[in-house]
Each structure stands twice: as structure tokens, then as C-alpha cells.
């Protein structure tokens, strides 16, 4: 039996232990996350509570993490002021400070890593964090993910212009950022989310022109419906948007299925929210599908728990998946082949169903014969495969604007339920972070010294004609392996 050798270019021992370690790390400083942090802190243990808000103006501009739809004011570009504003608007954090919890705002969690299948090289379980200037890793014993839920945008003609936005984005801009640029809004969807959105907007002094509902009756609970009625906000059932018309500054009017039009500057999509499971998913954590709780949900695994709406929307017996489908049928019915589905990559509905590549590539005749339908004859639907070929969902918003509706389109095309279509993968970093911020500028000497462009097997790159000649030895001497640096 040979002694175990050492491969200098393998990852073994190159990741240092993180310099910071907490008993519990809570990601998301909403009320659920803060409660989880307070609960964890009761025994005097070391607890870190991070919240990514305020996110940078640049991220807001690309609809990360919410569908801001170009309706934030320029105030979001002033980071210092935004931190103050957001902090003032999170009064529930005060007990966390008093309890000695380390609270960090404007701090993003972008990855969770632990040893498991195919990875044994980590010095423990870590979460990757970043602020505006740098990134770092923090070790934890317990992790609570309380990242909330994000918007579910659905495409219709004109949705890809400033002013079409999500309910969650509107709530954040109104309640935490004090930075909403719109005045007159129309709300799409009359389930609880739509009604709550309308009432919130009204309470913040906005003009709420109407709530549109695809079904023939208000969908939200009776109490909310009564408040909306009392406030005089019209709910127009059976009427849906067919086009958002606008100018340089975005939306100016919403054309409706009954032939009328409504002047407004913002159209707020309140059809549904999607639990933000991406950190867990990127770490290959378990998940399950529950139509009543918003779709794919994370499941608790060793040392990782979930709190708040990221664990699933409240189950009121309402089938969110069916409701979203009704909306997609209506809004999708208004779409032409030229309606943009993926805003980042500018891919249209026809590109998607035709399985065509972006416009910078030729579309030779054989390719034009291919489509989503022919692909589905070859195998079951897989959104990542469609993403690779059409680039829908591959852009800088990391798929937030289109992944859910592409999954719905794919399921419909395949005649399957949404739960039967594999979830398109989430990958770290789950927020776009610049190279200079995510970079490890303090990497270990071992990492620096052991780096190789590819495997570091000395014989691998020796030219075939040189094998067994003196050149082979020279190659090894000059390159010290493949390309040790």
C-alpha cells in the first residue's frame, strides 16, 4: 500500500478558516429575522443579523432583488443617507441592538457553503457576506434564512419600461427607502397582496386609480376587500392590462382588455410573491413545492432554518399557482411574438417558444425548424437547457424578472404542472457583486502558491511530438507543471 501522496494543485488546505465566527447568523432583518435573532440571543450566544437594505442604486436599476421597475427616486444613489433612512424605518431592530446582537445593514449574504457531496475542502460551514466595498466569509453553527419573498413579474406588451414594477418593490420603496418616484398607480391582482398594496399606497398619499382582477370577483380576504371598498378604490373584475403605453419616462397609460385606457405612471404587479429560496438552493439545500404557499419552498436541513415568508407564504387555502396561471393566460394572451420575455437578454416570446438564439447569431434554416416543441419531443422539460440555448434568464438580474414565467411557459408547453418541471438552478453569488468586491484580496499563501490554470499535471500539456524527447523534460522545467504561477 502506497503512502498517500500530495497534489500541490488540489484544493486541500487552501481555504483558511473564516476570521469571524458566530453561533447564529440570521440573514434578513425584517420582523421575522429579527425575532429569530432575538430568540437565538437569549442565552448570551454570539448572534449576527444582516440585512441587505439599502441595496445599491445600481442593483435597484437592474431590479435586484425586487422588481423596482425604474421607479426609485435618485435618493437611492446616496448610500449614506439611504442607510440612515432605512435604519430609521426599521424600528423593530432596536431590541436587537439592546440584546447585544451584531446588526449589520447594507450587508448582503451571497452564498452559503458547507461540506457535502463533492465538497470536502471547506474549513466548516460559512456564509459569504459583502458590503459596498468588500466581501468576507463568516463561520456559523446555526443559520436562519429570513430573506422574505420577491416579486413575480409577468410579461405583457410594454412591461419592459420604467413604471411597470412589483408590489414588493413598491412596499420597500415606500416603507423603507422613502424613495418612490410614482404618483398615480394601477394595481394588477386583487388577492391579499394586491389589496394590501393598494391600501399601503393610499396611506402613503398616492393616487390608487384601480385594482384589476382577472377573475370575476375580488380574491382577497373580506376584511381587506371592505377596507379597499371603503377607501373608494375601484376593483375592476374581468378586466386585465393588454399594453402599457409610455414615453421617455416610462409608463403613461395602461390599455385594458375592455377597450378603455387608464392614465397612470406606475403599474404595480401584485399577482404573487415568490419565497426567496436562492441561498438555500445554491447550497443544494432540500426544497418542496407547495402551490398554496407560493411555489418552491426551502426545507430545514442540518443547521439551516427558515423564518418568515422565505419559508413560504401564509397558507390561507388559496392556490397561488392556479391564480398565477390565470393571470399568465390573460397577460400572455395579450403578448405578441415580439413581446420581450427576458429583459436582460432582450429575448422575445417567439424567441423562447422557437428556441432561437440571440440576434447576434445567425439563425440558419435547420435551427429555424427547431422549437421548444421539438426539444420536448427529445426529453422532459428542463429550464436550464432552455436557458442555455435561448439565454432567457441568463442576464444580470439573475433571472429574477423572467424565470418564474419561463417555468410556467415551459410547463404549459410540456403539458405538465409547475411542480413537475425541475426548478432552474440558483447559483452563488445570489446577488450580482462586482469582481473587485467579491474578490478575495487576502487569499492564503497556499492558494496563491498552489494555483494552476488546469489540474497541474506536468505531462498533460507536453506537445505530442515532444513526448519522450528532451523537450519533455525542458517543458517540465520551464513550466513547472502545466502553468504554475
Amino acid at each position: 500500500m502506497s503512502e498517500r501522496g500530495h497534489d500541490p494543485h488540489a484544493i486541500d488546505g487552501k481555504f483558511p478558516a473564516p476570521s469571524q465566527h458566530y453561533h447564529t447568523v440570521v440573514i434578513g432583518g425584517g420582523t421575522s429575522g429579527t425575532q429569530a435573532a432575538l430568540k437565538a440571543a437569549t442565552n448570551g450566544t454570539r448572534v449576527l443579523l444582516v440585512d441587505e437594505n439599502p441595496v445599491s442604486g445600481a442593483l435597484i436599476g437592474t431590479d435586484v432583488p425586487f422588481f423596482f421597475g425604474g421607479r426609485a427616486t435618485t435618493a437611492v444613489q446616496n448610500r449614506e443617507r439611504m442607510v440612515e433612512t432605512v435604519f430609521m424605518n426599521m424600528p423593530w431592530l432596536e431590541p436587537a441592538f439592546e440584546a447585544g446582537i451584531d446588526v449589520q445593514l447594507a450587508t448582503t449574504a451571497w452564498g452559503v457553503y458547507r461540506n457535502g457531496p463533492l465538497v470536502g475542502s471547506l474549513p466548516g460551514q460559512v456564509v459569504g457576506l459583502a458590503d459596498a466595498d468588500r466581501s468576507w466569509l463568516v463561520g456559523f453553527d446555526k443559520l436562519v434564512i429570513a430573506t422574505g419573498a420577491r416579486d413575480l413579474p409577468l410579461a405583457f406588451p410594454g412591461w419592459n419600461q420604467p413604471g411597470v414594477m412589483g408590489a414588493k418593490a413598491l412596499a420597500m420603496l415606500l416603507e423603507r427607502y422613502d424613495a418612490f418616484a410614482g404618483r398615480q398607480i394601477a394595481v394588477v391582482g386583487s388577492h391579499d397582496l394586491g389589496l394590501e398594496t393598494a391600501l399601503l399606497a393610499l396611506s402613503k398619499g398616492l393616487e390608487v386609480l384601480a385594482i384589476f382582477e382577472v377573475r370575476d370577483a375580488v380574491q382577497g380576504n373580506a376584511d381587506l376587500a371592505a377596507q379597499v371598498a371603503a377607501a373608494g378604490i375601484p376593483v375592476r373584475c374581468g378586466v386585465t392590462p393588454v399594453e402599457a403605453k409610455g414615453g421617455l419616462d416610462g409608463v403613461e397609460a395602461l390599455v385594458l382588455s375592455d377597450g378603455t385606457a387608464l392614465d397612470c405612471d406606475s403599474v404595480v404587479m401584485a399577482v404573487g410573491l415568490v419565497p426567496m429560496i436562492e441561498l438555500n438552493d445554491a447550497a443544494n439545500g432540500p426544497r418542496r413545492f407547495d402551490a398554496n404557499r407560493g411555489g418552491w419552498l426551502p426545507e430545514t436541513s442540518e443547521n439551516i432554518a427558515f423564518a418568515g415568508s422565505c419559508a413560504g407564504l401564509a397558507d390561507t387555502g388559496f392556490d397561488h399557482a392556479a391564480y398565477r396561471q390565470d393571470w399568465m393566460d390573460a397577460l400572455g394572451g395579450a403578448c405578441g411574438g415580439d413581446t420581450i420575455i427576458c429583459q436582460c437578454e432582450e429575448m422575445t416570446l417567439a424567441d423562447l417558444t422557437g428556441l432561437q438564439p440571440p440576434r447576434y447569431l445567425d439563425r440558419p434554416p435547420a435551427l429555424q425548424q427547431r422549437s421548444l416543441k421539438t426539444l420536448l419531443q427529445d426529453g422532459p422539460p428542463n429550464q436550464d437547457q432552455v436557458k442555455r440555448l435561448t439565454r432567457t434568464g441568463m442576464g444580470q438580474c439573475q433571472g429574477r424578472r423572467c424565470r418564474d414565467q419561463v417555468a410556467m411557459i415551459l410547463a404549459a408547453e410540456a403539458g405538465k404542472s409547475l411542480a413537475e418541471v425541475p426548478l432552474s438552478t440558483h447559483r452563488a453569488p445570489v446577488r450580482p457583486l462586482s469582481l473587485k468586491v467579491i474578490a478575495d484580496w487576502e487569499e492564503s499563501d497556499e492558494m496563491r502558491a498552489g494555483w494552476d490554470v488546469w489540474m497541474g499535471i506536468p505531462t498533460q500539456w507536453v506537445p505530442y511530438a515532444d513526448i519522450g524527447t528532451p523537450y519533455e523534460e525542458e517543458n517540465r522545467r520551464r513550466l513547472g507543471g502545466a502553468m504554475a504561477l
Partner: protein
Amino acid sequence: MSAQKVVVVGAGASGLSAAWWLARAGVAVTVLDKGIVGWEASGRNGGGCSHYQSPLFKEEQRLWPQMDELLGYPTEFSPERIVMAVTPRQLEQYHYIAEMNNRLGHRVDLLDASQVREAVPLAGDNCLGGIHYRFGGHANPHRTVQAYAWALQDLGGRIVQHSPVTGFQMAGGKVTAVESTSGTYECDAVVIAAGPQTGNLAAQLGIDLPLANARAEMIVTEPAPMMKLGGVDGNGLYGRQTLRGNLAYGGGPHEWVEFGDLGPEVKPSTPLTRNLARRLAELLPGAAHLGVIRSWAGVIEMTPDGRPVIDRRENVTVCTMSGVGFGLSPASGHAISDLVLEGKCSFTDIEKLGLSRFDGIEADWRTSKGWLAL
């Protein structure tokens, strides 16, 4: 008698290319895969097409500029590469690589720092110079594997996805049928080009192919302004600017891994993302403000000397490209097809890629090299 009916195990770049070459020769081909076409290393790599070390190099270079036309589908092939240095040690190494290639008749030009910055606007003041391969280039792995698959179908070939191979039927020392979860497929010859699974499948046929599996990682940024030449790497990275503008780069330490017969279920990336990002920010300072939008990992099988195996025993042709399969796939498919149909490669000598070089290798060779999972 030449093979009329061939089963190819593995719908990666090598297997699909082999199947396509066989179909072009009029053979009835069925490709079986445990999952989706090009789903493993063939669809997760840097897309490089510049393998000057390989005996298949000339054929690789001859074919790539024609592949879009031959396949009928776009591969995003873009010619030539620049490798640029940001440390003196790198520059020294790249100059040696240039010298070696020029000796072998592959033109590589030396560039000084200002020439690199002229060609690579994202390069910075830290650039010390570089080399320009007047050959090679890069292509889009996703598009290329699907192009092979579709081109094969257009020639009447069949691809059966989600159909892992469960066994082989033999008669007279030859494989007569391949058994899979979707059924049994009769054949006159079989090709095994199943990536990390190749070793276990070959072993079922009494063919000893020593392999170890490693996990490697890449990152990609949001689009950068288009450079004249997208095949730019260096500073310990391989990669490219895609035709969309994204910067897709990999490199760095690998992790030796173990998994079951059906391959790894997950392919996690690690905080190595941060080290890759640092290297890329050093290589292309003009891109340092761009967001990293994804990282991913893939699994690659390695032979003990890191060199490919393309060889035939009876009516079984075995192929592992040992981590450099994508770029060479137009040529490796041709070589495999030749082996299946003629018993030898028609266009170049590949004797040194034979299995016999590992005859008598110690059973615990991976232990002595330290090529073991942690």
C-alpha cells in the same frame, strides 16, 4: 465487415461528435446518455479550441472554422487567442509557450504591454505583455453540444436521453447489445465516451482504464463592452469573453471527488469564486466593476498522465479526453469514428493515446498521487 449499427454511450462533446461522424459515414447510430446532452463537463467548460499539445491539434484547427456550416447550427466559434501576463513569471512562461509553438510550426506572436492593451481594452497598467496565438479560439459549449445533437438527428441518428447504461450483452468476445434503463440496443460496435463513467463501463467489458475525478469551477460576469478578440486569458485563468460580452473564466485548485455510478447529483461551487474573481480583476482591471452573476462547477475525469485515451479493443472503442475534450471534439469524434470503422485513425498517429501505457499500473495509483477525495 464494417460496423452498420453503433451504440455510443455518452452524449457529451466527444460521444456526440463521434456519433455525428459515424452518421455521416452512413452508420445507424444510437447515443445513450444518463441525462441530457452535454450536461456534464462538455457544457460547463471554458470553450477553448487551442490544444497545441494534442495529436489531434491539426484536425481541430482544420475543422473549427467549418463547424457551423458542417453542423448547420451555430457554435459561436471565434478564432485566435491572446494570453496576457501580469507577473514576470507568467510572462516568462508565456514566452516559453510561444517559443515551443513556433518551433512546432504553430504561429504565436509576442506582444508587448502596449500591444496587449491595444487589443484588449479591459487590460490595465499591470499588464506586462502577452502572446497571440494565430490559431485556436473559442466556442460556446452549450450551443456546440446541442449543435452536434441536432446535426446527428438531422442525419437520422437517434439520441436517447435519461437512459443510463445498465449492462452489455456479449458473444464471441464482442459486444452485441447495450442494455439501458430505456431498453436494449443491438450493435455491431460500441463507443464508450461517458466521461467519469467511462472507467466503470469499460471495466464491465474487462478493459482497465485508470481514472480519477476532479471538480473544477468557473465564474461569469455581466456583459462587458465587446473586445475585438474574445479569447483572452492569462494570470492562471482560462476563459473567454462570450459573443454576448460576458466574461466566463475558470482555473485554480481542483478538488478530487467520489460519486456513484450515475455521476454526481449536484455540482457545487465553493468560495473559490472569490479567488477566481480576484484573478480576473487582476487580469482585466477595466472589468473590475462588473458584477459576477453566476458560478458553477463541473466534474472532469483524469488519466494518470493527464493525456487522453482513444483506443479500441475488439468492437469496443473507448474515449476519455482527460479534461480537454470540448475543444478537441470535432477531431476526437473523427478519430473515434475511424477506429470504429477502420480500426485506426486515418489522419494522424494517436498510438501514444493508447490504453497499453497504463498496463501494470499499481492498483492504488491514486493514493500515491494524492488524487483522493477529502
